[in-house]
């Protein structure tokens, strides 16, 4: 069986995206049973995470895998064991796939050079978070009526792009899916060469709506970056880079990788009901991760999917 790592979405083709999302759909409809029976999936989290860890664990268990969880507390990771040592140990213990979360960009790629087990990048520093972008595409295509409906849709990515691994996976993944993107952020939260992506940069959510954004993809602003050197105040940030009620009048959808800072990325008085894809994103997480785990271990080959 051929295994494959999921480190980044930078080199993932449109057809590969379709294949992964089709398999995720099969999982969602209950058409795949226990593809990972007798497989062992290790979750190695070198950085705190609740949502992603739970989502991966559910995805692995629902696919029939044994799950071993290493997190910071009480494990070798807390004792300062190195990334490479941990990965080599998990490899020798017979892990069939290793799900890795780490605070430094490139950690997943480094780990993959030291094991023959497939590595699934569950977020590395500011680098990549490929399953997040995949579940976003999954939720979005379902809401729009299919993968081909993604083509030429206008999505604005709004907020802290500089520090965001979500953005670094969403941008190439959405572009490959045929989506037109614009970036919305102040200069202090944009990489210096944001133009390297070849995307328009807009200066407010109002401008994004004017540009014709059908989806407002809000990035989380970490609490420690809310006041001081990067943005002057939460009030000013939310005024220009937060979603207000007026932005949703023409049917724009809101996405967010969670957890939402109410009153920051999304105004307190915005009622997120039909316009919100956020619960759909969370729900898509489990079936997308089941699909990724299954493809990574080679338990279901491309043809069967």
């Amino acid at each position: 069986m051929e295994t494959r790592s999921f480190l980044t979405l930078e080199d993932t083709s449109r057809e590969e995206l379709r294949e992964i999302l089709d398999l995720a759909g099969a999982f969602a409809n209950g058409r795949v049973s226990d593809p990972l029976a007798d497989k062992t999936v290790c979750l190695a989290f070198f950085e705190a995470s609740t949502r992603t860890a739970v989502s991966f664990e559910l995805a692995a268990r629902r696919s029939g895998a044994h799950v071993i969880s290493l997190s910071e507390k009480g494990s070798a990771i807390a004792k300062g064991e190195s990334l490479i040592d941990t990965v080599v140990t998990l490899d020798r213990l017979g892990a069939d796939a290793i799900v890795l979360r780490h605070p430094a960009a490139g950690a997943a790629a480094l780990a993959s050079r030291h094991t023959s087990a497939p590595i699934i990048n569950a977020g590395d520093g500011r680098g990549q978070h490929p399953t997040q972008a995949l579940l976003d595409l999954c939720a979005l295509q379902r809401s729009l009526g299919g993968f081909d409906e993604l083509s030429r849709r206008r999505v604005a990515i709004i907020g802290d792009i500089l520090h965001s691994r979500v953005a670094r996976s969403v941008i190439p993944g959405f572009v490959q899916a045929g989506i037109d993107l614009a970036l919305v952020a102040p200069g202090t939260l944009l990489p210096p060469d944001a133009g390297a992506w070849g995307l328009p940069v807009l200066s407010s959510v109002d401008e994004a709506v004017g540009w014709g954004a059908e989806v407002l993809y809000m990035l989380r602003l970490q609490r420690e970056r809310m006041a001081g050197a990067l943005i002057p105040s939460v009030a000013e940030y939310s005024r220009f880079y937060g979603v207000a009620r007026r932005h949703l009048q023409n049917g724009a959808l809101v996405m967010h990788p969670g957890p939402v800072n109410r009153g920051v990325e999304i105004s307190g008085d915005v009622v997120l009901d039909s316009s919100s894809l956020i619960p759909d994103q969370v729900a898509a997480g489990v079936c997308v991760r089941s699909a990724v785990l299954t493809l990574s271990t080679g338990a279901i080959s491309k043809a069967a999917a």
Partner: protein
Amino acid sequence: MIQALDTPADLVIRQAHVLDPASDLDGVADVRVSSGRISEVGQNLRGLRELDADGLHLFPGFVDVHAHWRTPGREDEEDIESGSAAAAAGGFTGAVMMPNTDPVVDRPVVVSGLVRRVERESRVRARVSAALHMGLAGERLTEMRLLKEAGAFCVSDDGPGTRPAGLLRNALLYARSANLPVILHCEDHALSTGVVHDGVAASLAGLPGSPASAEDTATATALILAAETGAKVHITHVSTALSAALVGFFGERAYVTADTTPHHLTLTDDLVSTLDGLYRVNPPLRPDHDRAGVEMALRDGVLDFVATDHAPHASEEKELPLEEAAPGFLGHETAFAALYTDLVLGGRLPLARLVEAMGCAPGRWAGEGGSLQVGAVADLTLVDLSESWTVQRDTLISRSSNSPYLGRMLTGRVVATMVGGNLVHDRTGAKFGLRT
């Protein structure tokens, strides 16, 4: 100085292509070495011992004013024996050891200890740079006059640089009265908050970047203070086009020299997209417009010479995600070949200028070597410009293996190095056995 290899009393190096821009030598000639000095350059010289160098090039020995030999404190990464052997293998006959060791070289007793160890253990002329301030912490001046009495050749803030400009100004004033040259590492830590150059590659890879302004503003400050204090200042590892231009502006206005490194002349920041910890270095690899600007400044003599910033690191400090890896590259063994391959064979730098930038100019700065004229010390480098070789981990002489050129095929190989007429590196011992 180690005299492990043959020590001929009188030797003629025959038929090498002798190239020394400082002495206007450029052609096939014989060179006689007597009592550790060059005694004659001419045709048809005969000697008691002869070394057939037909087909090789003979240059003034290279001098590297920026070397980290990790002694004292990190001898697992490099020590004076291994560092000087690596230097000799790269054609270097002299080096300046940087003070950011553990402990920092900030006390006379550490300097005198190092000087004694150099005498016993070094294959090349190694000079000790003491620290510019205590612990390189940027708070208190070091005892520069006592450090000089103990044998320090210069003072430096390399490693962290100097944060408060006020202390830097005082340190330059004091170094001037102590008559010590100062090697400065220019970095503004308020701006250099990242681990790679803040450019396209960093943006796409998601690596925290430090802007070029972190180097440029600190370089400007250092140059202005050099001009104001009259200290003899050497700006090391210039890596941006703007910093090189600033050095050019102050060339006539201050007692200032500057160097850049082989890696800033040959590599660019697109390597960081590999996210490999091997490619972390400080100052970081820059985009090609900076690399080209630095290359032009070296060619035009605005930057006086090349120094390698040879910085060995244990593999456990490099086999990490890039932002956690220790910054630094090995430099000695690949410097000439990397520059010859990329710049000289690429038609962008004359060989004579490269020899001047690696041998003559830093030799003059260090006060010894750098010339093949009669009477000069016989510090020589013999190079085979036709040999291509692949940089490999297990053939590096350094105790570490963090070379950014690993796996690269380079052209031009040092075959022998002499310090004061002693053979300190002899790669093909059989071929260069001295005949009586």
